């Protein structure tokens, strides 16, 4: 994750205008643009709505509407690592729910929350396409299969170490 959450707002504004310039003429630019901004800054700052709306000839409300419609886009900075736990049927069939409860207890947070040290943000996800190896999780876009409490503990402590 290259989350630049600590950058001051003028730097963020500069990055946003860079992404606007590269996406402006693309047909259906809004989603690719939001992906680019989140990939770079780590979330979609509300300050971005106005310049986006101007560049793409949309209203601020439309931009807000799109950002909030999609589960993937976050409106606030996340922790250093994002841990997604699959909650869908296949993982449920293999004890995913119990594993999720265990992870929440270990980290001391619920879904959509970040640990106090800012290390891990926990998110539910509905299918990672790893259903042949349930239960599955994804840590910072790397997928792991047949997870259990022991493997989870290793994974989390490895993530915390970096």
């Amino acid at each position, binding site marked *: 994750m290259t989350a630049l959450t600590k950058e001051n707002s003028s730097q963020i504004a500069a990055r946003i205008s860079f992404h606007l310039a590269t996406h402006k003429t693309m047909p259906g630019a809004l989603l690719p643009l939001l992906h680019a901004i989140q990939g770079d800054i780590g979330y979609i700052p509300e300050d971005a709505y106005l310049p986006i709306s101007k560049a793409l000839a949309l209203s601020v409300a439309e931009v807000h509407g799109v950002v909030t419609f*999609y589960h993937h886009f976050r409106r606030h900075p996340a922790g250093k690592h994002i841990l997604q736990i699959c909650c869908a049927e296949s993982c449920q069939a293999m004890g995913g729910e119990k594993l999720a409860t265990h992870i929440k207890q270990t980290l001391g947070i619920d879904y959509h929350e970040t640990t106090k040290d800012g290390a891990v943000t926990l998110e539910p996800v509905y299918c990672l396409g790893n259903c042949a190896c349930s239960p599955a999780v994804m840590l910072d876009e790397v997928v792991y299969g047949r997870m259990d409490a022991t493997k989870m503990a290793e994974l989390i402590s490895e993530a915390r170490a970096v």
Partner: protein
Amino acid sequence: MIKSYPIKIFVPRDSSALSLGADRTAKAIQAEADKRGITIELIRNGSRGLFWLEPLVEVATDEGRVAYAPVQPKDVASLFDADFLKPDSKTAAAHKLNLGLTEELTWLKQQQRLTFARVGVTDPVSLDDYLAHDGYKGLQNALRMTGAEIVKSVTDSGLRGRGGAAFPTGIKWNTVLGCQSEQKYIVCNADEGDSGTYSDRMIMEDDPFVLIEGMTIAGIAVGANMGYIYLRSEYPYALKTLNEAILKAEQAGYLGDKICDSNHTFKLEVRRAAGAYICGEETSLLESLEGRRGQVRFKPPLPAIEGLFGKPTVVNNVISLATIPIILDKGAQFYADYGMGRSRGTLPIQLAGNIKQTGLVELAFGATLRELLYDFGGGSATGRAIRAVQVGGPLGAYLPESQFDTPLDYEEFSKIWAVLGHGGIVAFDDTVDMSKMARYAFEFCAIESCGKCTPCRIGSTRGVEVIDRIIANKSNAKEHAKQVQLVRDLSDTMFDGSLCALGGMTPYPVLSAMNHFGEDFGLEAKGLETFKSAQIKQVAA
């Protein structure tokens, strides 16, 4: 006999194989070879789809590829000690991980791999490998045909959309072909949101050129020069692989202007989705591609007539499009010869959930669920009885053991109020509480509803509450009966009053759970009770 060229070793790069440590295994093999001064050629192939055995490592021999599985880094030294790179090595044959020739594995031998013919065999991003394994033969034929001839071939093959709705692909293409428009589009639906499905992911990660070829043929057939792949954001590996393959295809003249020196132009771009299940629905997908909230559109107009940016658009699932090349290569009849009834060809079935031998099984339509669960699947992973099976994703019905002999066929499944959908099979053992699964079905609908229709948006949340009250009132007969009736009425309303299948089909998992596993709801188990509204419609029709 010492070979004069380095021995080829295959370690999959498919993300499910990676999720079980395939990268670590590959590194360990390379390091061990270096340490022993042995030159190897390490190829990162796709997965053969035997996921319970991943990481599955193969060594090329004159007789064919020999499989060793599952190989973890700790096993690597012992494989080298057993001379696993040496042909005819007796010690290697006796190694506990040796499975013999891959092609001879019963699990693979009993399949009919048409769409998945190359998956696991080739290096996914090697165009040379693709060409050496019959790649782009379909396109070469298509380039000699008229658009109408290509469409006829697809129609004659009997191919029906593999995304869930099973609509005949040729008919859809014919509509787009018949539209007069300067601009038309091919959109690949790669949103694969159903739990228990991963065949789209495997095609994109393990044989991306077949999808590119299929989309190119579609473009030539209907007169579209631009294609988009709408890819779910949960598939970062597929994104990388697709982009790499697209670049290679462009460089080799298989994409872009004057494809293979013809007069056809076809360009392709991958667009990332953003984690909304509803965007798998084709009109919601188009809204999303255009940069809006993924709200479902009213039909008509059909996307085929007014689709992306208002232009005629073919929207097809990954598997539908990836099946086009073999149809154009081997002919419509070759494909149509597989299958049963009106379900022609093969279905890539995905075994998931609580199954011992999970993985991808491509078979002609007509095999029974029981064969898949027990012959291929080997029963449950936990060793307990398989109690319920959900087929066709979160909107599919739960089937009890008494329905396991149903053949996989679109019409046979409709008859029992079930769906094949995208071919995902999720098994649950006897520890499952089906009232929780019914509750989850409503909950999922509430989370993913696009919000356009009241029965779906509000009804799903009410559904969760009603299931909770059913569970809480098991000993209060009067209240219990009232709540059960409420779920049935609500299901009827959702079935009838929803614009798309998210609201309209959520009652399938709910009612099938109640009807077949009534004991979990404090009900006497009952037979098949369907929707009142549907019965009324049937009588009227």
